[in-house]
């Protein structure tokens, strides 16, 4: 069913509750009270079973004939094609929206994030607590009136940074920050939030273990934030019976920097280097995702050579990500770094290529709206060909040889962390995690971006959804990446790499866009709202790691602590992207 037809069906079904969004906005405006009914119909009757993104936008002034409001924005997908966008308006004084978490568990973390940062309350959410900021934080930073510490102006460039033509660091001027606000009765020493100090209440309510066959004491274990295998600063709050996991809750936000707010202050192009820092293993993919999203608003034509270069870089990035993840899985299994360093060796060669084309190894900042920043020279292409045709296929075979039939690895990973397909879809999992559960959903096929529709490649799936299958999917996806690389390098055309002249300050036409790509870890989406200025009005990142992490408890329950670490490794998260 096309999106347009779905709109009509919905409007026929709920005549009072739905109206079209005004141009330049897309999708439907749904009445708050009917949201749950509409979402149920979408899920059960119309086949939109995947809720990709939930976020909020603040409109403090009346616009487009609408009163001042908060908007909750939902993006639904079916198995193919573009999004169905729902806007739900909430009163600005007392913003409440019904929660979709009971219908779509994938909304759980995202609604908590929208409450945390935007202040929209989701009624009926089972556990509406702050997620990225700390429990005692005063205010909701994404509201338009919120001014952060060291606040200078609403948007960049900040004139105050150049008083007499010489740059000044804002931090040196305001040592404590004029806008630093603390909650009432706050003291730096011995502060303790009152209601649920460290998130333990839910864990105290885990069913009494005394009546089981082998009664043991319950242990609540904090894995992290300082723990070797949480891949960054992630805190896992685990309730154990013996070593078996009864309840697990990821506590995130230790690396939070309010990427969204920074994005609103920056100019459109100024955001590009910030996206590098989201998933710091795959900066090229993040660049591509952001460029794809902004180009939806800009309506530029990317030259063919630039598209090819983008695909080449994105697929090299996928290769890096997967081989590093397999290496880290080995690390978590206890192979004393040997597997990880095996992956690092290949990664070094690929980042050498990134350094050649972009000047930086990890933080590439390479894509531009309408093209890429630098061309690939003949030498670079020759180097890339050498990698794609000779080195990398051998590297995959090496990994295959060491892991696939390793008895200990199989013992540890088969039937561990099983995620059934239905659960995976409900939790909004994407990427290898979803495909290992047997759902052949790949955005490169479902909603092709760039020039992916012109390449031959397979969408890799496995059926069991355990750790071993996720490894197998990653391994096979590396092969497919190499296949795409070989085709792209063979067909790489000559021509310009930018649409028009490169510009620094870009004005983007008013409108909203949700651009998404198949990043190595899953669906990386950028929700952008422009009011026609130099800066985004709203800039939201839907990161795959963050949403995939929501399904961790489902995967870990009933397994042992030892399994948790490899399940976490198989989910493949980067905390830079989770915490944003």
């Amino acid at each position, binding site marked *: 069913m096309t999106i347009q037809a779905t709109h009509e069906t919905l409007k026929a079904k709920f005549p009072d509750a739905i109206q079209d969004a005004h141009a330049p906005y897309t999708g439907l405006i749904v009445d708050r009270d009917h949201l749950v009914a509409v979402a149920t119909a979408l899920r059960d009757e119309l086949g939109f079973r995947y809720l990709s993104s939930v976020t909020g936008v603040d409109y403090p002034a009346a616009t487009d004939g609408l009163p001042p409001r908060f908007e909750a924005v939902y993006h639904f997908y079916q198995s193919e094609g573009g999004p169905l966008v729902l806007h739900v308006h909430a009163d600005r004084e007392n913003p409440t929206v019904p929660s979709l978490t009971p219908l779509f568990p994938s909304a759980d973390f995202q609604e908590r994030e929208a409450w945390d940062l935007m202040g929209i309350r989701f009624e009926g959410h089972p556990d509406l607590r702050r997620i990225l900021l700390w429990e005692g934080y005063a205010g909701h930073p994404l509201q338009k009136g919120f001014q952060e510490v060291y606040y200078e102006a609403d948007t960049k460039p900040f004139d105050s940074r150049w008083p007499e033509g010489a740059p000044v660091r804002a931090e040196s001027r305001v040592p404590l920050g004029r806008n630093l606000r603390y909650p009432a009765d706050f003291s730096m020493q011995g502060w303790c939030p009152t209601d649920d100090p460290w998130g333990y209440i839910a864990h105290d309510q885990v069913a009494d273990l005394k009546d089981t066959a082998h009664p043991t004491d319950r*242990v609540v*274990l*904090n894995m992290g934030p*300082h*723990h*070797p*295998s949480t891949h960054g600063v992630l805190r896992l709050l685990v309730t154990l019976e013996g*070593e078996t996991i009864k309840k697990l809750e990821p506590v995130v936000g230790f690396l939070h920097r309010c990427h969204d707010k920074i994005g609103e202050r920056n100019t459109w192009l100024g955001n590009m280097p910030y996206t590098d820092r989201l998933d710091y293993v795959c900066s090229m993919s993040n660049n591509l995702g952001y460029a794809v999203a902004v180009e939806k608003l800009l309506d530029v034509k990317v030259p063919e050579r630039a598209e090819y270069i983008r695909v080449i870089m994105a697929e090299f990035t996928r290769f890096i990500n997967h081989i590093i993840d397999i290496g880290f899985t*080995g*690390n*978590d*299994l*206890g*192979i*004393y*770094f*040997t597997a990880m*360093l*095996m992956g690092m*060796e290949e990664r070094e060669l690929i980042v050498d290529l990134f350094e050649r084309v972009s000047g930086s190894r990890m933080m590439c900042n390479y894509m531009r709206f309408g093209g890429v920043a630098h061309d690939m020279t003949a030498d670079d292409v020759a180097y890339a060909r050498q990698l794609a045709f000779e080195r990398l296929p051998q590297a995959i075979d090496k990994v295959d040889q060491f892991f696939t039939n*390793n008895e*200990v*690895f199989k*013992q*540890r990973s088969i039937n561990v962390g099983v995620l059934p397909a239905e659960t995976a879809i409900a939790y909004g999992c994407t990427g290898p995690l979803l495909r290992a559960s047997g759902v052949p959903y790949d955005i490169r096929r479902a909603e092709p971006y760039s020039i992916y529709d012109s390449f031959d490649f397979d969408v890799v799936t496995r059926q069991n959804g355990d750790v071993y299958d996720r490894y197998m999917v990653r391994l096979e996806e590396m092969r497919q990446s190499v296949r795409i690389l070989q085709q792209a390098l063979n067909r790489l055309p000559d021509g310009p790499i930018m649409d028009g002249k490169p510009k620094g300050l870009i004005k983007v036409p008013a409108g909203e866009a949700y651009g998404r790509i198949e990043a190595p870890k899953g669906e990386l989406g950028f929700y952008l709202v422009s009011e026609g200025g130099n800066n985004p009005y709203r800039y939201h990142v839907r990161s795959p790691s963050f949403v995939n992490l929501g399904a961790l408890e489902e995967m870990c329950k009933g397994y*042992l*602590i*030892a*399994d*948790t*670490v490899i399940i976490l490794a198989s989910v493949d998260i980067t905390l830079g992207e989770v915490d944003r």
Partner: protein
Amino acid sequence: MGDAIVNVSAWIEGLLLGTGLSEPWVSFIMTVISAFVIAFIPVVIVIFLVWGYRKASARMQGRLGPNSSGTWAGPGGIVQTFADAIKMLTKEDIRPAGVDVIPYNIAPILIFFIALVVWAVIPFGPGTVIGVDLNIGIFYIMAFSSAALFGVLMAGWSSNNKYATVSAFRSVALLISYEIPQLLSVLVVVMVAGSMSMQDIVGAQRSVMYLIALPLPAVIFLIASLAEVNARPFELLEAESELVAGYQTEYSGMKFGMYYLAEFINSVAVGAIFSTLFLGGWQGPFVDAAPILGTVWIFAKITLMTMLWMFIQITLPRLRIDQILNFNWKFLVPLALANLCVISIVNKLINAQASDWTRAGILLLTNIAIALVAWTLVALGGRQKRRQYEAELEVVA
């Protein structure tokens, strides 16, 4: 050349007697000196072993490892380990709040002590080149190495840390259960050699080492020992990716250093015990002509075993606690038991006048037979399980 070590000790003894000291005093001083030397051997070995381990792991991982590029660190970076040792000694000793002070402080001492004490009965050469030739040598080793469990338990429990406690839980399960197959395979050796004295066991392997006569106990002993010294794939007590550093989590400075040292010393000790029990200890070509060669042979064998340990340590992933225990109780223990029963009968049936080689051949054949039976049983069990699984799949389909 003669027996250099014995000669040196006789020379020192002569010197001491020459000063007019009475006989008991001289023998006391000689005991102290030899105890010092024997305790010193493993510690010195470890300093080089740590370097060797770093070098070997680096080479297996496509790195260079310690070297002198940058700051000077001696040929091949060998000085690095000494710098590490000095750093360890000078670091602040942090004691977290809420620990149970007495066990917390005793634990590292106990573990280090046990790691050293084992070396007293390892024969480093023929005759008297041994700390003390106890007639219950191997029993003494087994007894002391089980006591190491108390150290781990004390450390884990007293640290006031959940990771350490979980590690202590695991240690009880793991160390106790793997002691059984270890002991059972040692019993076979004791039975065949007819003595518990380490020197006698080495002597019994004069013509043929027990690795050839008793390969099955050797393999069982090796596996169980890997578990006992907490090496991969049984590295559960300080499983870095799960339990941070296990029972050592709350230790710092030289207390941590003692655990670190003890771990390496134990690993070498396993090599030494294995060499003595199964590889013929100091036995080797030309030992009769030059007894000093015996010392060379045993150290060569220990080095070989340590290399094997390193290789396993660096390349294998770790199993899960339930899998490890299953493997032990459902496979290793029954196998070791069956082995003990069968070999005790077969050994008795062999003519006492039979040559060493005949005896070894018969024992080897028995071992192979037991291994084949065990293999068949495991394969049958696996096939049955697979059939069951396939039947279930068909039901679902």
